[in-house]
């Protein structure tokens, strides 16, 4: 089927197109130069046309996500979808069931979403949930920052062995990137402890967070992965943690990006930085240090961040940062789930309420906004809510509207949020408003580029996958700065969404629910001879210390519906 999208106001930052009226031609699932006269015409006049949204950090599939669903029937009770035709039913506000996850992303015009934390030993679980997550293209990051093998290789300075191991592990678990969560801290949590900052040695392994971050940063470029290391820093959510954050950022400063696929030119992706930009020494003198963080990002070119914007909802926190979740449980008294995973990682799940009236939640909201608004180049700051940690992804349209409208933010600050927001942060003094072009950067092109997927994702040039969102908002006659509710509604329910050249959403409703997207994974080998040696070593330790057999570790081809391996030569 061929389509031509006519007369839309196109926002395609990767191709420097800023609201111009350009026709987009679609054939065989791709964007092409021209189509035949028989192509179906989609009239996009008075509408916004953007590439499909790309979420590079979300928790939508796998063990701890499902534990979040299991733990919280109250999250599902009043938030559900019925079965309609082939569209499956589902439930869940902050942790929707798999089918609903696909439909909800699609309705907002998002077509790619990356699961940000996959314990390698439980990779099959993540992929099994992907099998039931419709419409989206997806991938998953392997948790490696507390892996025993990684820590031992790095401790001994065996970077080549480490690279061979990591490339092998990502390949057999069909993962996409190296994820580092509270490096060393989660291993310490195996004993109920944690590490403080980046220079605190891990119990027994006697390696520091800094060494793990830097080591894996090098390994990432030795393998040449499309994405940089994806770092969740130490000390998440602790007052005063911004110093740890800045020190962590600096570790990657002199490491050259070397992707063997894609156009990434940075060596560090720091995630949900909102949770890592805190000043003060306790919750009493807690304050924003977002300006210092944004300043660092502005002055350095090796880093991209995503925000983890607080949306002021009741939500479910879930992270591989096990000790942090226990602290949250002690702080709130809310129910606590935890999964410690042998030799690899851990995780925790705790419900949380970001109340607008709460001083801390308000400041957290403001810190997120400051990070967006004080970072000069929007190519360096990607929109996320660390779904569902700072808020559910269905709130992206609201976050977009906040960025587009100072008035929307001011109303919120003046009327709903705690006075601390004005006392402890600079957000009320920032009148910057994103343009729609910048929105397309922070939700599309910047994310696609840092993932290494910018050849086919995040843009509307010839050769791109025909993943396209059309929103009912006329940038020529309407002003998002004042009509922020209109733009919020437009981004919540897209007029049309194309996925691989097919209309999957029309008028905000899923019209083609049965399709399934690709799974991206990295098919690479660092050095075949060295890999054989490393795997032999792994097998010996596997028998002794893992509770499953080596043969049970890998993810079989049956767990991927539409495989899209990226081969690194």
């Amino acid at each position, binding site marked *: 089927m061929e389509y031509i999208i006519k007369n839309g106001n196109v926002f395609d930052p990767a191709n420097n197109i800023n609201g111009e009226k350009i026709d987009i031609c679609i054939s065989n699932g791709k964007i092409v130069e021209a189509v035949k006269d028989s192509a179906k015409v989609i009239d996009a006049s008075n509408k916004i046309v953007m590439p499909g949204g790309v979420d590079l950090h979300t928790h939508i599939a796998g063990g701890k996500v499902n534990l979040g669903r299991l733990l919280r029937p109250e999250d599902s009770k009043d938030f559900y979808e019925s079965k309609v035709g082939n569209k499956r039913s589902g439930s869940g506000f902050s942790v929707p069931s798999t089918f609903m996850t696909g439909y909800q992303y699609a309705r907002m015009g998002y077509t790619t979403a990356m699961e940000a934390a996959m314990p390698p030993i439980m990779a099959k679980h993540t992929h099994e949930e992907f099998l*039931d997550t419709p419409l989206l293209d997806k991938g998953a990051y392997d948790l490696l920052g507390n892996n025993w093998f990684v820590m031992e290789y790095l401790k001994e300075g065996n970077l080549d062995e480490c690279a061979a191991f990591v490339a092998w592990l990502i390949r057999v678990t069909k993962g996409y990137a190296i994820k580092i969560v509270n490096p060393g801290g989660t291993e310490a949590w195996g004993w109920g402890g944690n590490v403080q900052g980046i220079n605190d040695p891990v119990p027994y392994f006697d390696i520091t967070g800094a060494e793990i971050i830097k080591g894996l940063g090098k390994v990432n470029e030795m393998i040449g992965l499309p994405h940089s290391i994806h770092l969740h820093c130490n000390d998440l959510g602790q007052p005063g943690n911004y110093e740890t954050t800045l020190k962590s950022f600096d570790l990657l400063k002199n490491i050259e990006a070397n992707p063997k696929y894609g156009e990434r030119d940075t060596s560090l992706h720091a995630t949900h930085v909102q949770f890592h930009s805190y000043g003060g020494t306790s919750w009493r003198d807690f304050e924003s240090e977002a300006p210092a963080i944004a300043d660092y990002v502005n002055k350095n070119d090796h880093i991209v961040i995503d925000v983890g914007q607080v949306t002021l909802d009741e939500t479910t926190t879930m992270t591989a940062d096990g000790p942090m979740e226990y602290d949250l449980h002690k702080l709130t008294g809310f129910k606590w789930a935890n999964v410690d995973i042998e030799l690899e990682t851990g995780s925790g799940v705790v419900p949380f309420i970001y109340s607008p009236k709460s001083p801390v939640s308000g400041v957290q909201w403001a810190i997120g906004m400051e990070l967006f608004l004080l970072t000069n180049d929007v190519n360096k700051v990607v929109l996320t809510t660390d779904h569902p940690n700072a808020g559910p992804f269905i709130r992206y349209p609201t976050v977009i509207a906040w960025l587009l409208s100072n008035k929307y933010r001011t109303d919120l600050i003046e009327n709903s949020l705690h006075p601390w927001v004005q006392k402890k942060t600079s957000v009320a003094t920032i009148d910057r408003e994103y343009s729609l072009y910048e929105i397309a950067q922070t939700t599309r092109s910047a994310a696609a580029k840092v993932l290494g997927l910018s050849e086919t994702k995040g843009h509307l040039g010839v050769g791109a996958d025909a993943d396209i969102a059309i929103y009912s908002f006329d940038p020529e006659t309407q002003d998002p700065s004042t009509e922020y509710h209109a733009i919020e509604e437009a981004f919540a329910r897209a007029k049309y969404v194309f996925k691989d050249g097919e209309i999957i959403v029309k008028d905000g409703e899923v019209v083609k629910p049965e399709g399934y997207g690709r799974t991206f994974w990295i098919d690479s080998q660092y050095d075949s001879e060295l890999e054989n040696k490393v795997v032999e070593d792994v097998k010996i330790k596997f028998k002794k210390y893992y509770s499953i057999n080596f043969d049970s570790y890998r993810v079989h081809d*049956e767990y991927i519906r539409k495989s899209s391996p990226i081969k690194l030569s």
Partner: protein
Amino acid sequence: MELVKDVPCPFCGTLCDDIIVKVEDNEIIGTINACRIGHSKFMDHKSATRYTKPLIRKNGSLVEVDMDEAIDKTAEILANSKRPLLFGWSSTECEAMGIGVNLAEELKGVIDNTATVCHGPSLLAVQDTGYPVSTLGEVKNRADVVIYWGCNPFHAHPRHIGRHVFSRGFFRNRGRSDRTVIVVDPRKSDTAKLADIHLQVDSGRDYELLDALRSVMNGHEIPYETVAGIPRDTIYQAVDILGKAQFGILFFGMGITMTAGKNRNIDAGICTIQELNQFAKYTLIPMRGHYNVNGFNQVCTWQTGYPFCVDFATGYPRYNPGESGSNDLLQNKEADSMMVVGSDPGAHFPQKALERMAEIPVIAIEPHRTPTTELADIIIPPAFVGVETEGTAYRMDSIPIRMKKLVETDLLSDKEIMEKILERTKEFIASK
């Protein structure tokens, strides 16, 4: 003879994946490493009472029919029911379960699994209080205190103790002698005989004992000579050991989930573990029975948001154990047809539920003759997962394991059968 290595065992929730199976001429002739129950699973999959053809009860006796007729009749019964109940699932693989959830949704019926009569109370308690768990490898590598409460793995999960508790781990390189084992059981079970400390609690008084432990942990004294049959000093001694641990683990079974107090017992157990984390690292793992009972809870949760007792009557998933559980529906005479997959409620449900099963059409997707098939009106024999067909199963600690196919069969898998039933059911519903 071929030796197939690294085979996962389709018996219990320990899901040992180190079995070596001897295969000759498409027959299993022996196993290595398996426990006696696991061994018999592999050996008896082709026993005398194995069904090979679909059967339908006609005029009181079972008659062989072809697969199409069995599927057709099944779909007709389900599609014409007002409140169909799809029960079981715990001894099959995850993909079949997923299609089962889809079928329940299509039928506006109820789907439930065997957790309803085993760890269902644990699931309710998790939703009340939380779920601090770890994988079994963490236990092997770190645990110095191991508690078995209301379970008897020596007989029910025979290799559990050997593989994960008595074995050597990274930080416990002397194995058994590096660990203190506490067993809480009213009986002097064979597991209790292996314990360093056996707390022989009075039957049905687990909650009181947990409460006493928590009181002492939190700095209070016990004003009574004994609690739940345990002398006060023994409780002090136990708390002393618990508090001095580095890494403790609580394994619990049906002796505490299904005795007086049920989910309230587990609430207290989970709270105990959470509170112990102020002294040392503590986690828990429920001793799941069927090899893939956890798998159903996983699949059902990711597809619907709820782990079991899911009611699609309104077109979207609703969850109300006590109303939407299998026994509620059967004993209240609500269910007007029942499909059983991968389990044997005929052997395990209360009399009143069985009476209802005898009244309504029952379809059993079941390889063997069981008390359930005695009550069934249609029997469809599937291939045996883990022996004759592949699939995914989730261990008691939620690690997914790929089950293997060892021998060929002409029989359809549970998944293929479910696909056919779903397709045919959709046609019946569309034609109504």
